[in-house]
């Protein structure tokens, strides 16, 4: 356990300032009495209360949200702190005031009403102080959580862009384009069009939350056409989308990582290349989209469905449809299959 002593010191100083304010307020109500005793009492009670609570919570298991012990333990700690502060604080303060003769020429004047008032002040000040520290910890925690969440979202977006605009893919594609311009300008133009559509879709993906399945398949077609030019006879592909599913809204670029995985981990490492098949169909109230390849399978990659792309798809599906959507992934020596099921009525 590491204790942030700087933070503790800051808490102590704040407690002292608060105590001074309480003592001054008290003095303001009875200005005919000396100022010193309420200051000594207030500071001693406050410091001891602070010590018991703030140091004490180091030894108790604290809730992550607030840094305070949860439930009755927290309340018990505060009560113990205030009681100890009161008992030890008043005794010590009385001793100090007597020793240094701070009570003034008439000695200590303390009626029953004074005692009740002191207890009340200690209780109220102790509770307010504790609550203030508690609330501040909690709001700091929430602010930290928000920053973390923002960081995660940025990381994810950046990682997605990095995988899709991977420099190796970009430069190889450009090299192919450069080669085609010389030998087949018409095909070069087609390739450039596919590339433009692919880039636009990738860069827009963070803005468009969803688009029709037809558009999703068009983007897959752009990507696969680019890869087919690059890989030549090593890549064959089929895209099958029934007309009645064409307008179904799906999260933008949901399938893209699956097809990219099939290329990258399935077909690119395979000397003879292979096929990719993407099919959508209805199945008992849901839409099933399958991406199959005849690549080398998961072997060697060993990601076993834990890769960034799959995790990301699962997260997006869960956020949109909860348990009603699913992604299953399996791979063996014959290739890899990914199967997404989405509820038809979104």
């Amino acid at each position: 356990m590491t204790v942030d002593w700087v933070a503790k010191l800051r808490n102590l100083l704040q407690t002292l300032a608060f105590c001074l304010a309480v003592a001054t307020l008290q003095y303001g109500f009875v200005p005919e009495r000396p100022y010193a005793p309420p200051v000594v009492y207030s500071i001693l009670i406050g410091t001891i209360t602070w010590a018991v609570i703030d140091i004490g919570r180091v030894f108790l298991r604290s809730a992550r949200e607030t840094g305070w012990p949860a439930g009755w333990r927290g309340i018990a700690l505060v009560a113990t702190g205030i009681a100890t502060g009161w008992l030890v604080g008043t005794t010590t303060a009385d001793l100090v005031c007597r020793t240094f003769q701070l009570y003034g020429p008439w000695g200590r004047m303390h009626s029953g009403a004074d005692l009740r008032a002191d207890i009340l002040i200690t209780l109220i000040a102790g509770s307010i102080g504790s609550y203030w520290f508690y609330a501040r910890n909690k709001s700091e925690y929430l602010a930290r959580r928000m920053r973390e969440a923002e960081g995660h979202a940025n990381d994810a977006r950046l990682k997605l862009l990095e995988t899709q605009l991977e420099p190796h893919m970009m430069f190889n594609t450009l090299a192919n384009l450069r080669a085609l311009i010389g030998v087949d300008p018409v095909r070069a133009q087609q390739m450039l069009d596919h590339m433009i559509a692919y880039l636009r879709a990738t860069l827009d993906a963070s803005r468009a939350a969803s688009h029709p399945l037809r558009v999703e398949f068009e983007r897959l077609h752009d990507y696969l056409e680019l890869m087919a030019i690059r890989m030549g006879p090593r890549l064959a592909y089929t895209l099958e989308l029934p007309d009645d599913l064409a307008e179904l809204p799906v999260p933008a670029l949901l399938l893209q990582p699956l097809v990219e995985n099939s290329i990258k981990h399935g077909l690119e490492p395979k000397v003879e290349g292979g096929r990719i098949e993407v099919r959508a169909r209805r199945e008992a109230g849901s839409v099933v989209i399958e991406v199959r390849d005849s690549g080398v399978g998961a072997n060697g990659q060993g990601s076993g469905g834990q890769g960034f792309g799959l995790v990301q798809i699962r997260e997006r599906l869960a956020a949109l449809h909860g348990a009603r959507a699913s992604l299953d992934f399996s791979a063996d020596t014959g290739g890899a299959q990914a199967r997404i099921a989405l509820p038809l009525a979104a």
Partner: protein
Amino acid sequence: MKPTALIAEDEPLLAQALRAELAAAWPELEVAAIVGDGAAAVRGALAHRPDVLFFDIRMPGLGGLEAAAELADAWPQETAFPALVFVTAYDQYALQAFEAQAVDYVLKPVQPARLRKTVDKLRAALAARQPQGGAALEATLGQLRHLLQAGGPAAAPQPLLKVIQAGVGTTIRMVPIEDVVYFEAADKYVRVVTDDGEVLVRTPLKELLPQLDAQLFWQVHRGTVVRSTAIESVQRDEAGKLHLVLRARRERIAVSRLYAHLFRAM
């Protein structure tokens, strides 16, 4: 005699483009063969014995670096080893290593001006070449060794394996690491060979290697890692190749030229 070249590139359009650019930059160069993967590159180079090799770094199966190492191992001693040029679209780590080892490379898309520089260097190298390529081969092997080691970002040091856990049917066999004589990559498995038997594990050799004590376990071939204390002697055959004789096992283990430097008398 006209100089010859072999191009190994898995993307057909890029292979054709490189051939076309080479025809412009080096008209007398004859492209003997174009192949699309690393294994074919090794076979093709052995068959044609070209003067220059253009190897793409990323190819299916064997990559360009591994193919070059394999080729150096199988290369006949009486012929000079070809000049090597690597081709890549983008490989940060590899490029740094190439610079450090003074190994030539060209970036895709190939820029004519850059290619001409490479061609000039190659012409000078071919003119200065000795017919007997022993020293040149040694130098190439040294470079390849460094390049293969520098093949990626430095991996974090991993805790050493104490025991190999191998699934055999429904049980898991526990093999203490000091009982292992050698590891051998076999298709989709790694054979873990002990004095009196063997088990198979699925973890690739590449992933096992950083978890082994490098003092004790020596890589002697692309697919073989041997416990040094299990080796009884090292023998050289007529072709100059090294073979390991083991203490407890009868089979001999071939040492790749890439790792022959490990075995020298003290």
